[in-house]
């Protein structure tokens, strides 16, 4: 099922949570809404679900306008961050709930419901736990019950609100992998919200980066990581080092010197230069490169991160060096980013 979000605005008590957002979700894809808190990602998910109504704009399921349909009519599966399981019901009753509340004309017979529950439990690898109550399960198990419960109604779209947010790091990684496999097997159109960029990049076919109620960029993990569309995306996804530079005559200048980077096609004038701390090359002798003094050093897992002062302690950037690199405090380092990006600051 394709979902189209068309020029949607949502205000809460005059405060705009979403500002003219449009998004096409393709049938069968796994798409992530990624952003910091307050970026509007959960609001967008809830609007798609019908748990909130947009102030302006439309939401289409396929060709049909779902904007004014109730949650019940939309037939979506929603998984909440804190599971929202019915704690007075067994696992089996939780999963069967969506089928049991159907009017008797469309409700499957009891035996079929039981079989469906058993199938779903097998799919989420929890067979044998149907008689348990939610508080007798671990967090990861509860989240999988919540997923099975959402899947039981054969939803047109599966919506997950920070599905792994309340789990510890190890379980989160396992479930992430498991969800990817689950999606590949079932092929449901799935939208999930996360503030964890690693999760979004690893899991999603496409990532929607959001900030302050707007979509900053939509693209594959490669797109948003290698070709960030805005300074925000560059800072938010992955590590970023940033320097205020100038573009003149097709070259990048830091203060009064060129740094050996050709800026063909970039707008002339003041710009921000972005690069990844690990994506640099070291040079000996500096005829057109960055010339920094080491002022700090931290050990990361697989590398050492140096803090460098540039241009007479005006600017600070971070670069990664191999663990055995001999750089000492106050020593000089010459480097040049291998890949970089310029964003004009004259706007």
């Amino acid at each position: 099922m394709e979902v189209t979000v068309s020029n949607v605005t949502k205000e809460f008590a005059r405060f705009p949570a979403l500002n003219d957002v449009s998004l096409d979700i393709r049938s069968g894809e796994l798409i992530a809404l990624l952003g910091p808190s307050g970026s509007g990602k959960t609001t967008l998910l809830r609007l798609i679900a019908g748990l909130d109504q947009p102030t302006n704009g439309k939401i289409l399921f396929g060709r049909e306008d779902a904007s004014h349909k109730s949650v019940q009519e939309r037939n979506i599966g929603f998984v909440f961050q804190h599971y929202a399981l019915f704690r007075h019901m067994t696992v089996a009753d939780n999963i069967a709930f969506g089928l049991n509340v159907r009017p008797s004309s469309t409700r499957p017979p009891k035996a079929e419901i039981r079989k469906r529950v058993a199938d779903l439990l097998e799919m989420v690898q929890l067979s044998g736990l149907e008689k348990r109550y939610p508080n007798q399960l671990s967090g990861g198990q509860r989240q999988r019950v919540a997923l099975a419960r959402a899947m039981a109604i054969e939803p047109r779209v599966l919506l997950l609100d920070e599905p792994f947010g309340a789990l510890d790091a190890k379980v989160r990684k396992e479930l992430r992998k498991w969800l990817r496999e689950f999606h590949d097997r079932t092929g449901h159109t799935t939208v999930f919200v996360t503030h964890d960029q690693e999760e979004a990049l690893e899991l999603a076919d496409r990532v929607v980066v959001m900030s302050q109620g707007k979509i900053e960029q939509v693209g594959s993990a490669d797109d948003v990581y290698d070709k960030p569309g805005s300074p925000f995306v560059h800072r938010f996804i992955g590590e970023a080092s940033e320097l205020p530079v100038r573009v003149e005559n097709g070259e990048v200048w830091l203060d009064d010197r060129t740094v050996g980077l050709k800026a063909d096609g970039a707008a002339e004038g003041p710009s921000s230069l972005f690069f990844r701390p690990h994506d640099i090359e070291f040079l000996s002798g500096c005829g057109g490169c960055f010339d920094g003094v080491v002022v700090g050093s931290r050990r990361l897992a697989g590398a050492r991160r140096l803090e460098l002062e540039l241009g007479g302690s005006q600017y600070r950037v971070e670069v990664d060096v191999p663990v055995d690199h001999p750089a000492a405090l106050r020593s000089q380092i010459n480097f040049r980013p291998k890949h970089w990006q310029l964003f004009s600051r004259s706007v």
Partner: protein
Amino acid sequence: MTSTTASTRWRLKEPSIIPGFGLTLGFSLAYLCLIILIPLAGLIFRASSLSASEFLSILTDERTLAALKISFGTALIAALINVVFGVLICWVLVRYDFPGRRLIDAMVDLPFALPTAVAGIALSALYAPKGWIGAWFTPFDIRIAYTPIGITIALIFIGLPFVVRTVQPVMEEIDREVEEAAATLGANRFQTVFKVLLPSLLPAIMTGFALAFARGVGEYGSVVFIAGNIPYVSEIAPLLIVIRLEEFNYAGATAIATIMLVISFAMLLIINLIQSWSRGRYGNG
């Protein structure tokens, strides 16, 4: 080896890391003895001055049986009515915001604060055959005051805050997401309320019921004015105890009291057992 198993067996639970368990438990037990157990033991001690056959004859006396039936019957009906309307009031107070909400919230506590005799006099004036409300029912030949109906009304008045005050905080803590989850699964409002919300409130509702019921069984002040106290018809067990005391029949009074104590204790115990069973399943209920 045997000594360690013997000593660990006496530790019912893992000792807590917070110090002072022995001191606080000792104090709690001493306090409970002083406040509750010693008076009750005195009651049973008094009653035990009766022989078994005397005790049995008091127990099977028509008037005693009628009084017990009225006391427990009216308390049960009043507690059930309070559960229904108490939960409704909770719903209104928790879910809606309207002018005067805090005032109504405070009003719920009035039966706690009012001297019960004042309530009893006010109620009997209202529900008497010529009272403001009672007069409406006189043409239909329905009498409220001086019948078990009147007693029930007094007990509803007294018991309401117990239900509201136990259910309200639990209802406030219901996670909105649970309701939303039910809606996304296709449940309508009615199904959400009756299949999801009310069952999760059940432990709190049962506590409120138990409290209102226990209070109703023991209520005296508000009931004696509206009850009319006609033997076999509208005479409650606590009143019968007072009557026996006034006859200097202390053993008779304590016998009835002992029976009430046993029945009440048994009912509260059963309710508590049901609750701890459901808590074991649902978690912090």
